[in-house]
């Protein structure tokens, strides 16, 4: 029938092969796991009050493992280790994990390598909620969660809900609509925040402290309150890794591969927003973790969400734990400054690597 053409000659490979270092997820997991343990040990051993490392171990063994050890430490040392340092270190890990998982999800869902957990207005919503809480002269706490935590949590979720609803009303393509609406709503909320800060008077410091983020108020109550939310939502996201993979080539391609895109988008958005809201409710707005960790992990193990999600969770926990450690050692500077110092150079590298035309 038709004329056969010449068979195609294989072209010379133009670019270096991808990922000679890829395919080592187990290695990465083990390495980050070890770093995590290291962070735990250092975090509990270090602080402004010097405690003998043997005492630290004794306290941990006695309180956590129930070992019957001779008490060589003071009551104060025990309080410091168990009620100040330990919950703080564990909280940094939980928040780091939450932000990284949310980052992976938002980047995959919105198909944008520059997305972070705050891209749909969660940060602005939480900040405004926190500012309003500071302005309200009511001092209340339920189960250890103050008004600030509660309003920050609700503010984050409310912002995403508004963005989602408005984006659907716009005639734009779903992803573009979400991103642009997120930007617009975020800007509006930021204006509200600026106003709240302007009238806050002496409360400005507390609002500002929330914006910078930090773990000096970490407590067992906050940790145990946020833990189930973060862990359950993260597991549910991991179970939907297939969806994130399917979205790699676009929403239409994903639909052809069997993904119910509208439904999955809603579910994943909701889960990722919950995780983010839980994190910002207890630790304020810490940037760069959710943006940078997923990229590092993808560089090492490829884009498959089944690997990227759990490894980013580990990576985020490690990054934030060490960042908080560094922040404490550097005179208790805000941890957001440390993550920015670590993350910003990396962000620039990522920008340079993502070429302008990544069209397939």
């Amino acid at each position, binding site marked *: 029938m038709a004329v056969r053409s010449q068979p195609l000659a294989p072209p010379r490979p133009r670019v270096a092969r991808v990922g000679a270092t890829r395919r080592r997820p187990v290695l990465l997991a083990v390495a980050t796991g070890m770093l995590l343990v290291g962070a735990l040990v250092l975090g509990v051993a270090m*602080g*402004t*009050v010097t405690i003998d490392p043997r005492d630290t171990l004794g306290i941990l063994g006695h309180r956590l493992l129930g070992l019957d050890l001779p008490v060589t430490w*003071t*009551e*104060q*040392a025990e*309080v*410091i280790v168990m*009620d*100040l*340092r330990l919950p703080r270190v564990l909280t940094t890990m939980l928040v780091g994990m939450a932000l990284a998982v949310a980052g992976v999800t938002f980047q995959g869902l919105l198909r*944008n390598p*520059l997305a*972070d957990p*705050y*891209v749909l*207005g*969660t*940060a*602005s919503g939480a*900040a405004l909620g926190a500012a309003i809480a500071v302005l309200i002269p009511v*001092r209340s*706490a339920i189960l*250890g969660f*103050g008004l600030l935590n509660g309003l920050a949590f609700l503010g984050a979720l409310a912002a995403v809900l508004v963005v989602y609803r408005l984006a659907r009303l716009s005639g734009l393509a779903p992803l573009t609509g979400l*991103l*642009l609406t*997120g*930007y617009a709503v*975020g*800007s509006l909320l*930021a204006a509200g*925040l*600026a106003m709240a*800060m302007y009238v806050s*008077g*002496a*409360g*400005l*410091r*507390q*609002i*500002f*402290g929330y*914006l*910078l983020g930090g773990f*000096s*108020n970490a*407590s067992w109550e906050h940790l145990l309150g946020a833990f189930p939310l973060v862990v359950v939502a993260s597991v549910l996201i991991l179970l939907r890794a297939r969806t994130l993979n399917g979205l790699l080539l676009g929403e239409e391609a994903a639909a052809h591969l069997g993904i119910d895109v509208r439904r999955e988008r809603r579910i994943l958005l909701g889960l990722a927003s919950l995780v983010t809201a839980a994190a910002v409710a207890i630790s304020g*707005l810490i*940037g*760069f973790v959710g*943006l940078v960790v997923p990229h590092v992990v993808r560089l090492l193990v490829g884009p498959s969400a089944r690997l990227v999600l759990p490894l980013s969770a580990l990576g985020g926990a490690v990054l934030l734990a060490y960042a908080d450690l560094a922040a404490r050692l550097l005179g*208790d500077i805000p941890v*957001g400054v440390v993550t*920015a110092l670590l993350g910003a150079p990396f962000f620039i590298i990522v920008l340079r690597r993502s070429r302008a035309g990544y069209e397939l």
Partner: protein
Amino acid sequence: MPVPVCARVALIALLAVVLAACTGGTAGTTGPEPTASPSAASASVAPSVEPSPTAEFPVTLTDDEGTAVDIPATPQKIVSLTPAATEILFAIGAGDRVVAKVEDVANHPPQADALPVVATFEGVDTEQIVGLAADLVIAGGNFGTPPDAVAKLRSLGIPVLVVYATTVAAALADIELIGSSVGASDAAKDLTASMRAGFDQVATATGELPAPRVFYETGTLDLAVYGIADDSVYEELLTMAGAAPVTTGSATNWEMSTEILVTADPEIILLGDGAYGVTAEAVAARPGWDVLTAVKEGAIVPVDDIVVTRPGPRLVEGLHVLARAIHPDVVLPSLAPVVP
């Protein structure tokens, strides 16, 4: 591509830092010498005060935020998180039981110099407070001490008494409250009594004199000038010192507009921000200020803002500073030394 929202929020936050730093900033230079004659750093020893008998404890006090604070026993390791509280504790004889303090630019009293600093403008070192086995913490209200730190300390079982005074009467009440909390009620009452006597003496000395219009400058930021708000403690103190204070006209806004100032035409300008680099010459050179009587007559006087407003035992001294700045020829009795 949308700019990460965290970057924008951080930008606004950065602007806010500049705002906050400028209005609440501290300078390294010391304030001008107050014109009061008796030296405040007297070396004489006031009668030492024994803590009241243990029948006073356990006690439950209501702090200035309305929180009930349980103090189970006479505190032996007190941490002071406001500079005024540090002064008060030493003045009522509890200084030997204070184990840590907050950073104080005025560094008063000198007996507190050796104490470790556990709180600065940046935050409170809860770990150190716990490490010192503190059994009472005196904190500052109205966000003076971060509320989160207060909550954290309370959650660890350490009683925290939050004090905040916006009037002279409230400041005296705080002195007595602190006295009750450390088992030095009698000493505290003696102190407040002598302070009231001191206030009365100033009132008597200035009562007959005409009250000049006085503008008290609390700070500047770029071209904005900050005075005193209506119903503030500054207004109260200036009135007690025999002045007719010029206020901003609002109870919440501390910024003084040039128009209001010119209309009020103060006869004396007191520079509460004199320690932060504001000089009389700079003030006189401000556009539109040359019509003010105070500028024409060169009645621009820097005063030590800290001693004037710190709600502690040196308030009488502060009142003397004001009175002398307003009525240079007034005759005031000498001040009793404050710190034992």
